[in-house]
């Protein structure tokens, strides 16, 4: 029997990523200055991004696919890694956890996300999801001596394992019904047999919703998010609030749009209350937070709710708007986290929202940038946040969910209160504590990139919208 090697071309980025992450792990043994590892990890990402060119195609018997959709998400992941690593360098030294594994774990986690984005088969999906999740569990607990960090890791792990069980249960039911784990084959089977109202099928859709809802931190599966975001190292919070969330949306979009496209109305009916609840819980509970990381955790929950509108629209336009939203969210959210991380110094935590009082007086530039990110998260033009929201609202209205958009905009007004409260503290209160900013060239780089992206996309949305549309056309 002839063994034929599958076409490895679509897999090129993942292969390079694996190799480079391993090299990084080993080189940690020889390199004493961990900053070098940070630079190496960024260089690795650039190499992997380069290998992505011309890698489109399907391989391993249709289990793995590299298309515009997956490439777009991979670019979000790369942006996420580059920015998160940039803000980590000084920060993990301050937290006294300056170990080389940190960077290779970030790369492994990202590898998992990349596999998720490219998964055309439920088994591959699960593989990627676990790789991402396991690496992130460790990263969440990276500050070993800190109880909160430990708590974050344990909580994330326990609830994550629970949600994986749901996912596996869903997969096994689907396999039981259709006899396949390939997304397109599942769709074909459902379509041919006309089993749209099979209760087991709907039950497995619900299980998938639960599992993915956990990853994107959608209410009521969001319970882990605030504690984990608060306890994890701030740089990892930034990383987690963008990467795994985007990966969760990537699989949600692909599984629901490809495998379950024939039960669109059923899963939309599940996702609609979910998104309302998510926006509601995220925005309303955020009002009561005094820890800025916790506040941004709830804000991140709320943003998942807005992005869900794009999936609920259940068409390519909707998916494009969701992707565009996540890309924009990556920039504005990491931008905000960069300012938060700059407040952290040897003897100062800088996590309470009261630490921001009078920041405009002591550090006008940092305050002005935070102002831009806060207005962007609120969704006020001319910032990117507005473009992101506008696009998902447009696609949801076009799909006939005007009432849902009205709910969403009302929640976004509520969100103005807690985002602008930070602005208020910075500009309208007198400084009470002395705040020293920890600035490095790397954080400066992250701030420049995120600010330019937020303003550029805000004024010329074409930059990202065109990109998302082109990506979805090769879905």
């Amino acid at each position: 029997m002839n063994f034929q090697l599958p076409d490895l071309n679509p897999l090129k980025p993942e292969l390079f990523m694996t190799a480079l992450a391993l090299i990084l792990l080993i080189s940690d043994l020889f390199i004493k200055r961990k900053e070098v590892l940070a630079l190496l990890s960024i260089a690795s990402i650039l190499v992997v991004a380069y290998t992505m060119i011309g890698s489109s195609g399907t391989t391993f018997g249709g289990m793995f696919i590299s298309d515009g959709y997956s490439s777009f998400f991979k670019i979000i992941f790369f942006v996420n890694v580059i920015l998160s690593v940039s803000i980590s360098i000084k920060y993990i030294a301050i937290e006294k956890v300056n170990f080389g594994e940190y960077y290779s774990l970030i790369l492994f986690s990202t590898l998992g996300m990349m596999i998720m984005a490219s998964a055309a088969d439920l088994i591959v999906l699960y593989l990627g999801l676990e790789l991402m999740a396991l690496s992130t569990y460790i990263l969440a607990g990276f500050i070993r001596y800190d109880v909160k960090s430990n708590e974050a890791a344990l909580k994330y792990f326990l609830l994550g394992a629970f949600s994986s069980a749901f996912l596996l249960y869903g997969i096994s039911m689907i396999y039981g019904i259709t006899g396949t784990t390939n997304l397109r084959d599942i769709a074909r089977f459902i379509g041919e047999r006309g089993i749209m109202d099979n209760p087991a099928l709907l039950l497995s859709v619900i299980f998938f919703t639960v599992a993915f809802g956990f990853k994107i931190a959608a209410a009521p599966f969001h319970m882990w998010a605030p504690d984990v975001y608060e306890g994890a190292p701030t740089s990892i919070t930034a990383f987690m609030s963008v990467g795994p969330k985007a990966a969760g949306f990537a699989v949600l979009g692909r599984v629901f749009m490809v495998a379950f496209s024939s039960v669109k109305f059923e899963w939309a009916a599940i996702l609609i209350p979910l998104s309302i609840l998510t926006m509601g819980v995220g925005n309303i509970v955020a009002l009561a937070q005094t820890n800025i990381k916790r506040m941004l955790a709830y804000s991140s929950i709320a943003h998942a709710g807005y992005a869900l509108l794009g999936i609920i629209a259940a068409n390519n336009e909707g998916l494009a708007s969701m992707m565009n939203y996540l890309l924009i969210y990556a920039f504005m959210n990491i931008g905000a986290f960069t300012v938060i991380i700059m407040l952290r110094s040897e003897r100062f935590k800088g996590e309470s929202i009261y630490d921001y009082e009078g920041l405009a007086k002591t550090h006008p530039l940092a305050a002005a940038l935070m102002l831009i990110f806060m207005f962007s998260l609120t969704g006020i033009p001319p910032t990117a946040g507005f473009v992101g929201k506008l696009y998902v609202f447009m696609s949801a209205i076009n799909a006939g969910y005007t009432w849902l958009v009205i709910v969403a905009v009302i929640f976004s007004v509520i969100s103005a209160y807690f985002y602008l409260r930070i602005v208020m503290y910075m500009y309208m209160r007198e400084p009470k504590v002395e705040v020293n900013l920890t600035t490095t060239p790397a954080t400066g780089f992250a701030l420049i990139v995120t600010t330019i992206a937020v303003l550029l996309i805000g004024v010329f949305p074409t930059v990202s919208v065109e990109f998302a549309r082109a990506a979805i056309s090769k879905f």
Partner: protein
Amino acid sequence: MEQVIMNKLNYPILSTIIFLPVLGVLLLMLIDRSKELLIKWVALIVSVLTFALSIPLFTNFDKSTYKMQFVERYDWIPDWNIKYFLGVDGISVLLVLLTTLSAILCILISWHAIKIKVKEFYIAILLTCGAIAGVFSSLDFFLFYLFWEAMLIPMYLIIGVWGGPNRIYATIKFILYTLIGSVLMLVGIIVLYFHAGRTFDILELMAKTYPYNLQFWLFWAFFAAFAVKVPMFPVHTWLPDAHTEAPTAGSVILAAILIKMGAYGFLRFSLPLFPDATKAMVPAMLTLSVIAIIYAGLVCLAQKDLKRLIAYSSVSHMGFITMGIFALNSQGIEGGILQMINHGVVTGALFMCVGVIYERTHSRLIADHGGLATPMPIYAAFFMVFTLAAIGLPGTNGFIGEFLTVLGGFTTSKWAGVLAATGVIIGAGYMLWLYQRVFFMKVHEKVVGLADMDTREIIALTPLIILVLWIGIFPTQFLDFMHPSVEHLLERINVGGTQEMSIAKIFMEVVR
């Protein structure tokens, strides 16, 4: 037939008005924050230059056509069919000019009043004025909404950072009220976008007609945004707080131009886009307007705080404007537009006057002042002119505006006209009583020996005095701007040529 007249000047006038302040902001950012005098002068020069460059809007405006003029149009976001589309017609041109003028006055009046974060203050003022000019000249819904919301960011800071003791409450109330209205309008805009076949172009949207049911819902969605901004009863409650707590320049921006955005929105969007819904809503809108006129007027009588009183008088005056607009006849609408300018001039001036005295006594309470005419005669004279204009004394601009709006209201609904006229009387009551308590009677110990207005303050207020008399004596020079545009608007709503109109026309001749 092309519906617009492209800009024929040798520079893009509207873009200049909007973005020259932004360039000024970039320049200010480069200046060291300790050089406060330089910052002030740069801001002043930028605003004067902007105003100077906006004068062709007045001199080169073609008053014989309703078409959009000075138009600039470029593709901006092709994916969504969004254009960078600017232009003005008879409805908006004067408002743009008022905006560029207000920027100068705001900077002059803040010269000594603003002592902290000086650099940020002038940045915020320039950004606000640029964005508001953008609101008045955008002909693409996306662009319009962009400016409409972007204006909130600097305004939030102006009230919140440089305002009075209760400023934080006021600014949050301001932004939440405004946002909730705006986002509902945003939903409306998107619905309209898809219904009209994916276009944000306001002229294209106006060329279409919409089913009544859609008009009805969209009217209310837009109403939410505009009514909050105007502000109409019962969503006016943010205004007294914002006005009272804002620094003088903030109050001037609010009174002179910001709240005009709401009334402008009704004229530019609600009326021509949803004519059937508008006609059906006339009774409701007139009722709300009349309530605002009388209720806010009565509330004024009970105020102890100078700024709060003028703030409530704003609500009352804006009631005349919305009444004129929703009277849906040419007197009412032209009166409404003129009254928008008048109110901007007069109330802006009154707030500046209050700022002048607040800088000296650091009190806004009416009871803390008294007999001011003795130490500050020039100030008293200025204040008198503006008080009389606010009351609507013939010969001042207030008379023309109030007369036309009441006439318009009367033509459409006798009750509205009659009740609004009682509002004029209440207005005379509270303004004159205010003047009496502040300037006459016993000289209060706090005001003994106060210095009269200095040259800077006189320079800041003189243009407004000129406008009060100019509009008051030669109203046609300003009304002429509006005729073709208002006529076109009314054709669109197609109410015209009723019996009562001809009676009104005779009145109009009397005014001329």
